[in-house]
């Protein structure tokens, strides 16, 4: 093995939670093989943590890359090593499920800039021996995908059967399809857009400012100071969480119900159930997520604009593509509304691409892609079955 090749085998380590050893796999890329970034810098050495489910077939034609969303990670279909909660897509990925692990080999990579084992701002900068913090280079969705490509190359997979993901995961799917069309047989971008809208950038900015306004953030050097900006990160999560739901879903779940009391307290406790719920969302989030990672990853989403990267016309991103696309949106999603998916469909049609598009009726908002939506599952399984037929993948053994 030459000094420029990645080393694999060791378990990934989370930079948060005092260096917790994580399940899954890890690839260490040496300084001789740095990752060039869109910002002009290059990152090296660096580490990528990923997890796999199922097994790769002999001709390596059954691999599905799952791209996780902003606050997701590689623990798609197993108990989370930090929170002890079920995997974020556990009812979607597994034996006999939509992404059937008896049939497909599932790969999920912790994104660059993340905090579950892949190099991010919470890791140590080998040059200084100090945490990167805000000296970590600003990364983009394109950089995340370039890092994932290193894993796919390492596994020797010439062409991924499918790249699938929702929200920021969907942006990565689009980036894959645009940048490496010959390596993506099918693409399933869910509840996403070809660019981050002004409103979405605005929400991200609120979150970032909440983190930066927390005195414990210490200008990004909280690790050195032995502190954590938990209040700021928690507020960022609370604000963002509202955008993942819908007015109807919030009303259905909570209405104006009070939390453990019969009347309002004429104070600023969590009188309402919805307040208590949001506070809980915020406080559990800070246990598993790094505040600086949140800054970097939201920034990557803000910068995403596929048309701008292709001379201002989205169709240019997909010209001549042979990839089979299936887009899905949800009626009550106001973060990535159906119009965004439709704009993508129009661009794909203009490129005469092979595309399916389904809008799912639900009141669950943006988060619907993470929840039990039978119509959505049926759409993705049907699409994948059609693709598998075209690729000549054998049907899975009946249980």
């Amino acid at each position, binding site marked *: 093995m030459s000094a420029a090749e990645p080393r694999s085998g060791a378990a990934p380590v989370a930079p948060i939670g005092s260096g917790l050893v994580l399940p899954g796999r890890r690839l260490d890329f040496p300084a001789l093989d740095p990752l060039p970034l869109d910002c002009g810098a290059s990152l090296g050495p660096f580490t990528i943590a990923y997890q796999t489910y199922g097994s790769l077939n002999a001709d390596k034609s059954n691999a599905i890359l799952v791209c996780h969303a902003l606050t997701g990670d590689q623990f798609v279909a197993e108990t989370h090593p930090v929170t002890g909660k079920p995997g974020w897509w556990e009812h979607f990925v597994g034996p006999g499920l939509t992404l059937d692990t008896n049939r497909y080999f599932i790969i999920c990579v912790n994104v660059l800039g993340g905090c579950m084992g892949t190099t991010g701002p919470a890791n140590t900068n080998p040059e200084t021996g100090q945490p990167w913090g805000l000296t970590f280079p600003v990364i983009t969705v394109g950089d995340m995908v370039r890092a994932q490509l290193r894993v796919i190359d390492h596994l020797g997979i010439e062409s991924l059967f499918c790249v699938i993901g929702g929200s920021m995961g969907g942006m990565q799917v689009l980036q894959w399809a645009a940048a490496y069309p010959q390596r993506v047989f099918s693409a399933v971008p869910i509840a996403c857009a070809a660019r981050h809208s002004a409103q979405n950038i605005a929400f991200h900015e609120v979150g970032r400012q909440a983190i930066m306004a927390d005195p414990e953030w210490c200008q990004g050097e909280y690790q050195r100071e032995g502190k954590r900006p938990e209040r700021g990160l928690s507020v960022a999560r609370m604000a963002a969480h509202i955008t993942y739901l819908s007015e109807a879903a919030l009303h259905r779940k909570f209405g104006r119900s009070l939390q453990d009391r019969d009347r309002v307290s004429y104070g600023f406790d969590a009188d309402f159930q919805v307040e208590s719920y949001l506070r809980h969302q915020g406080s559990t989030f800070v246990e598993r997520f790094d505040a600086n990672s949140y800054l970097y990853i939201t920034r990557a989403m803000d910068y995403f604009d596929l048309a701008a990267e292709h001379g201002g016309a989205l169709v240019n991103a997909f010209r001549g593509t042979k990839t089979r696309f299936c887009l899905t949106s949800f009626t009550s999603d106001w973060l990535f509304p159906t119009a965004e998916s439709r704009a993508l469909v129009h*661009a794909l049609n203009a490129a005469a691409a*092979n595309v399916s598009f389904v809008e799912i009726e639900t009141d669950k908002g943006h988060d619907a892609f993470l929840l039990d939506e039978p119509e959505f599952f049926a759409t993705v399984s049907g699409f994948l079955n059609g693709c598998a037929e075209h690729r000549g993948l054998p049907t899975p053994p009946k249980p």
Partner: protein
Amino acid sequence: MNVVNVSATRPRGAIRVDLQLIADMVTDGSRVLDVGCGDGQLLDWLVHNKDVDGRGIEWSQAGVNACVRQGLSVIQGDAETDLRDYPSEAFDYVILSQTLQATFDPKTVLGEVVRIGRRAIVSFPNFGVWHIRLLLLATGKMPVTDSLDSAWYETPNIHLCTITDFVELCDDLGIVIEQAMVLDGRGRPRNLRAPGFLANLLGEQGLFVVKRR
């Protein structure tokens, strides 16, 4: 990488007679867009029996979901707004089966299908058939028949035409009729010279293969 197309090894059974007529007009292995593909019956047959690269556009969400669930490439959209995105001659055939009369702007839609397809296959109910003429004359009310079974205020068929009307529109748009036939009430071809006076009087449906001049 072993990429094979096994779809042709699993042919589908019989489909509706009038759809079968359309299917028979499509060349093996061609690129096909079915506008208003419904639950995908014709598209599915073409993909599995003629190995076409098939796509569909369907307005109803239930129809789209049913199509995508069975592995067909179908988008939710309509002929009015979603045809203009496609590049010219993107398809060998664009199929407009029983859809033209339900569009807001049949003239534009017809122009678009012959632009994006090298050929278009168009079928529609013939409002000039003798018993419809007779019904209107006898009752003085909008005819309701087996195939046009909704009252005037709730029918999706807002731009009904006769075979002669369709031929005139093709002339206006500089569209060449390559093949024309009329079908009976069960969707079977009738042995009549089409287009023509008798075809317009006796045909329940018109079925045309057209292209740009």
